[in-house]
């Protein structure tokens, strides 16, 4: 094996990607798309919940007005605040607006209900609530609307109805509702992440999302660049250039050059993304941009985390791209290749089943063992590192095992690759592949 041709091949692979417009469009577009995907839905959701026209029929009496008042009043900071207790700030998604119309109970019950349904269908109102004595006895209130999947709105309605009904029931029992509210107020967890470089306050959800985000970013780039290797090999086969190159380059050199060049292109893209992320997640920048409310503690993306992410990308890429290269070499077109590639995706997707258990308990035996299994290491070790830094020996052991596994894979796949790239025609069977490995 010689270094020269490997470098020549790698240079071509790298620059033909990095010099292309598509590469930079993707590099810039992804962060924008991700931002859009997280911000837009909540904006749209807020808009769509801005007003719901709600008809309330109070068959019991005494609740209608209180409900209407409460639904409007909740938009202002808590009125029930007692001295010494900080009022709970309403979150944005809770401040949906209601236009309440109180409908008097009149005429035939069934007829009135039918009429209300008709008004919903006609678009005059969005939904109606029916408080009946028998319903309340069973702690139930009827809600009719064209869509009943808007669970945020429903949970708020149910909360308000519970509060109003509860208050009335307390009053009837001779208990001071305000006092009860003060005494039974929810207690929040103030989360602080303990880190070697200094503990700091951080939202639990934010930590979860960071781990989740890095996990999926790694999944995405590994898959994306792995498939680029496969498509590159297929392109060389179908354009018939491969034998021209083999005149001076050994197949193993071509394979390694390819892995190196495409891997570096992926690394370039990741470095751009991660530095942007690290810069933007610095506390000062966040405050300056006023992107987040003060009480949300963003997890800071440290250099150590980025370094591990990049190492894991390279390991994961080398592992899967080697297999993708063998698949590309053994097949004749993308359709054929995808059938084999399906087997690979299983290993990339499998870690997702362990996502939640590992985030919950990153030191469990299951988490430690699974993160040591080479095809799973890149994704699962990333998750563990993002959630809670595992002991160094575990990280190093996982890296060493994966590296050894990659060397083995390259040895096997180079044999398939060597024979496959010159084979045109029918797709090989697994038996034939086995023969290639044995005799190459």
């Amino acid at each position: 094996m010689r270094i020269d041709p490997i470098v020549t091949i790698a240079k071509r692979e790298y620059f033909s990607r990095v010099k292309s417009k598509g590469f930079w469009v993707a590099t810039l577009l992804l962060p924008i798309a991700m931002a859009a995907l997280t911000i837009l839905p909540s904006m749209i959701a807020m808009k769509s919940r801005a007003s719901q026209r709600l008809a309330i029929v109070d068959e019991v009496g005494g609740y209608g007005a209180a409900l209407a008042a409460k639904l409007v009043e909740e938009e202002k900071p808590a009125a029930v605040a007692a001295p010494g207790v900080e009022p709970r700030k309403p979150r944005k998604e809770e401040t949906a607006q209601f236009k309440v119309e109180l409908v008097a109970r009149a005429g035939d019950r069934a007829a009135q209900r039918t009429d209300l349904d008709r008004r919903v269908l006609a678009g005059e109102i969005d939904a109606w609530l029916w408080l009946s004595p028998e319903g309340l006895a069973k702690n139930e209130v009827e809600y009719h609307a064209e869509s009943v999947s808007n669970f945020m709105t429903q949970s708020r309605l149910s909360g308000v109805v519970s509060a109003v009904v509860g208050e009335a029931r307390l009053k009837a029992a001779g208990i001071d509702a305000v006092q009860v509210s003060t005494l039974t107020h929810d207690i929040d967890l103030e989360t602080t992440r303990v880190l070697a470089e200094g503990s700091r306050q951080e939202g639990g959800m934010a930590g979860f999302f960071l781990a989740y985000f890095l996990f999926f970013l790694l999944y995405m780039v590994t898959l994306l660049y792995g498939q680029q290797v496969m498509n590159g090999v297929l392109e060389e086969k179908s354009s018939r250039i491969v034998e021209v190159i083999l005149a001076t380059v050994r197949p193993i050199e071509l394979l390694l050059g390819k892995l190196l060049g495409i891997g570096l292109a992926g690394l370039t893209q990741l470095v751009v993304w991660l530095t942007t992320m690290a810069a933007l997640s610095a506390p000062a920048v966040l405050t300056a941009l006023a992107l987040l409310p003060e009480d949300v503690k963003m997890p800071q993306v440290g250099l150590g985390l980025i370094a591990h992410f990049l190492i894991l990308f390279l390991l994961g890429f080398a592992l899967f791209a080697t297999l993708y290269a063998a698949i590309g070499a053994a097949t004749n077109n993308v359709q054929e290749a995808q059938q084999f590639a399906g087997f690979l995706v299983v290993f990339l997707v499998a870690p997702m089943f362990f996502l939640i258990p590992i985030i919950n308990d990153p030191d469990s035996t299951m988490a430690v063992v699974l993160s040591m299994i080479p095809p799973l290491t890149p994704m699962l070790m990333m998750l563990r590192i993002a959630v809670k830094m595992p002991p160094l020996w575990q990280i190093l052991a996982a890296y060493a095992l994966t590296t050894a596994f990659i060397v083995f894979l390259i040895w096997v796949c180079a044999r398939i690759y060597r024979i496959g790239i010159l084979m045109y025609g029918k797709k090989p069977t697994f038996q034939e592949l086995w023969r290639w490995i044995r005799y190459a």
Partner: protein
Amino acid sequence: MVCRFLQTAAGKTRRGWIPYLRTGVGFSGRKASQEESGVSNNLELREVRKAYGDFVAVDGVSLAVPPGAVFGLLGQNGAGKTTSIRMIMDILAPDRGEVLFFGRPRRLEDLRRVGYLPEERGLYRKMTVFDHLLFFAELHGVERRRAGKLITEWLERVELGAWAKARVEALSKGMQQKIQLVGTILHDPDILILDEPFSGLDPIAQALFKDLIGDFKARGKTILFSTHILEQAEKLCDHICLISHGKVILAGELAALKRERGGNVYRLTTSADRVTVAATRGVAEVLDQPSGLRLVLAADADPAAVLRKLVQHGDVTDFRSEVPDLETLFIQAVRHAN
């Protein structure tokens, strides 16, 4: 079967032997080695064999390409030409036998002195012409700055100077063939190996190829090319090696081969049928060719006696001695090999 021929440095045959095929008996070969003559062959295969499973693609092929030769590797499709060439280029490993470059076992760096054009060839469609040629040059170890100069010169020479910055996919097929050829010879190889170079070429590219082969030959370089089109080989080659079913069935200097066979090949036009002609005493073989029958006479036969016999069987309107063309040699050799 072994075939070797000795050459002087000038490329003229001094002494040589050709496997005598008419008896159908293979020669074990007299060792006419380079030590004897002091001249090394540029390229040599020794008893090379390659099998794919049960199918033996190349079965003990030996051939030697002397310096300055235009060497034609001939044979029908599937005869083993491409497999042989791939073994020369170290793309396939022979099961047995040896590949020698410049009179010694092949080294990896020897391949950089070769310009190889495979039968299955192509280019990266998305690369620019200049970058692509630069890539080819670098693969052959040409220093970057020198490569840039060479590329510009070559593009001018093949009249594609204006296309240097264009992507390969923007070029017509004929232009792409020119680029492919330039990529093969950019590093000024000592040996050119072309596998079916004329297949699928448009006439302009074909003319360019022929010019180039002539040019390389004039500069004393060695050229090996494979083809199944005998007329082409006849015009271009000075040495041939004929392969059939993985075995060498005829090899040697073309002129010498023709001379050997020239004395007893006759062209015949007669009213007698082919079977009668073949049964005539002194006729070793009858070849049915589009331009008429060719008779190969037995070594000890007297042409005049044969003609007298033929006249008895039918009206003979034409009977003349002929230098056999490559096709005649080919058919004869194939028939004897079978």
